[in-house]
């Protein structure tokens, strides 16, 4: 196993090699032990300062990154665009360069524009971790989803994972597809045709419109959230499906679907859950669900990513 990542930034899973992913998992396992110790902290990043720039709303990702950074003993500053000079018209590069001139070593950024972290990488001089860029990628989520599946059913090579729901607006879907494929898993996407990107087959994934068939096929299903806010902003005129009720009738994961499919796959959900829409409470909290483990693993994965990227920062 290599001792360091092949990349200097985490912009997306697309740029990672399979070895990088294994290295991140290897360290995440160790960090998971650390966060379960009586003292949940290591001093590795004592002189590193990290800025969390959230230009878009987030609760769990932001909390998870913050916790990961604190567990590694980094100093952190938080920024959210509401109430900042962004509202006065400051450009992204100006905002970030101003923050960087306060001697920041690493930037964790969430932004509503796909490619924003790539743009920042070209125009600033810092280490960048993508915490979600629009509908593009959410690499740490992809990693933690794979890590959670791996923990339960072992090596992903040859395993079948179905991603169900709003594929079109989901950065989680794309990161998951890349991450799973790089580990040799088979990936299927499932949802109404209007929520499946037209050329997605070119990524080498199977497309299925029938939830029962997808559940029957899969070792694990990742139920995505219906992104009501993005439906409204992108497709105001032509909705992607007639109503939430109709969506739940066809694509809700519930007990009946599992019975029809005669299969009990592992159930993942990146959160926040719209209970009663894409999944029933019974299954979201049931024994096949790893939703809460995903949250715990999220901290360990983010610690691993930050730790490995920080090892490139010279003193």
């Amino acid at each position, binding site marked *: *196993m290599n*001792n*360091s990542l092949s990349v200097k930034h985490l912009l997306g899973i697309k740029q990672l090699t399979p070895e990088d992913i294994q290295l991140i998992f*290897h*360290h995440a*396992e*160790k960090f998971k*032990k*650390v966060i379960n*110790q*009586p*003292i*949940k*902290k*290591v*001093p*590795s990043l004592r002189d590193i300062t990290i800025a969390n720039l959230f230009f878009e709303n987030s609760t769990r990702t932001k909390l998870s990154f913050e916790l990961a950074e604190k567990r590694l003993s980094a100093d952190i500053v938080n920024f959210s665009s509401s109430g900042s000079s962004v509202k006065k018209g400051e450009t992204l590069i100006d905002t970030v360069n101003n923050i960087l001139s306060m001697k920041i070593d690493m930037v964790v950024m969430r932004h509503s524009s796909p490619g924003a972290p790539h743009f920042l990488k070209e125009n600033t001089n810092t280490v960048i971790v993508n915490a979600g860029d629009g509908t593009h990628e959410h690499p740490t989520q992809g990693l933690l989803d794979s890590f959670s599946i791996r923990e339960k059913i072992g090596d992903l090579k040859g395993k079948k994972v179905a991603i169900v729901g709003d594929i079109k607006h989901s950065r989680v879907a794309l990161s998951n597809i890349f991450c799973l494929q790089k580990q040799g898993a088979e990936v299927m996407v499932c949802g109404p045709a209007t929520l499946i990107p037209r050329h997605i087959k070119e990524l080498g994934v199977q497309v299925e419109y029938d939830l029962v068939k997808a559940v029957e096929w899969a070792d694990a299903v990742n139920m995505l959230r219906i992104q009501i806010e993005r439906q409204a902003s992108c497709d105001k005129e032509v909705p992607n499906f007639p109503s939430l009720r109709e969506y739940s009738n066809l694509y809700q994961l519930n007990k009946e679907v599992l019975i029809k499919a005669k299969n009990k796959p592992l159930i993942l959900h990146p959160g926040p859950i719209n209970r009663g829409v894409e999944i029933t409470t019974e299954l979201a909290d049931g024994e096949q669900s790893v939703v809460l483990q995903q949250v715990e693993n999220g901290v360990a994965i983010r610690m691993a990513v930050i*730790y*490995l990227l*920080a*090892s490139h*920062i*010279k*003193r």
Partner: protein
Amino acid sequence: MKPKVLLDKKLFELIINRLCYELIENHDDFRNTVIIGIQPRGVVLAELIYRRLKKIAPKIALQYGALDITFFRDDFRRREDPVLANTTKIDFLIEGKRVILVDDVLFTGRTIRSAFDALLAFGRPDAIELLVLIERRFSLQVPVNPKYVGKSVDSIASQRVLVKWKIDGEPDKVILHTSTDE
């Protein structure tokens, strides 16, 4: 130059036995004592000593753990190639216990210093005693004093002291390599 054998199998055995008897002398029935090996090579030695102690005195109640110090090293971001993390496995608290910390070779002392930090996560021990198979003299960079020493050797910084274990496919022995060996 041919590598010099510092400890052959026979001497190795004698020393392990002596270290065990020294431990028994100081720790009686080990009720309040835990033994913790530092990953990776200290764990092999700690295991060996643990098994030997159990053989000599089957009734002792000794707990045993493995400690990885990677995240506590003081050379993070100073090395070209980062160190790959290993596994910590300590299923007990060390609060109020006497800890026997075990490593194969004591060289600069920095690993041991990091281990002190790493141990704090598991409580405040009553005392920490250090046991090493080989103490390289005149090379300490921090003040660390082992209580139990297998053998003290004089070596220069460019030389390497290598402990070969049975698990490496060779009989247990300790070798001194000089930089011109390879």
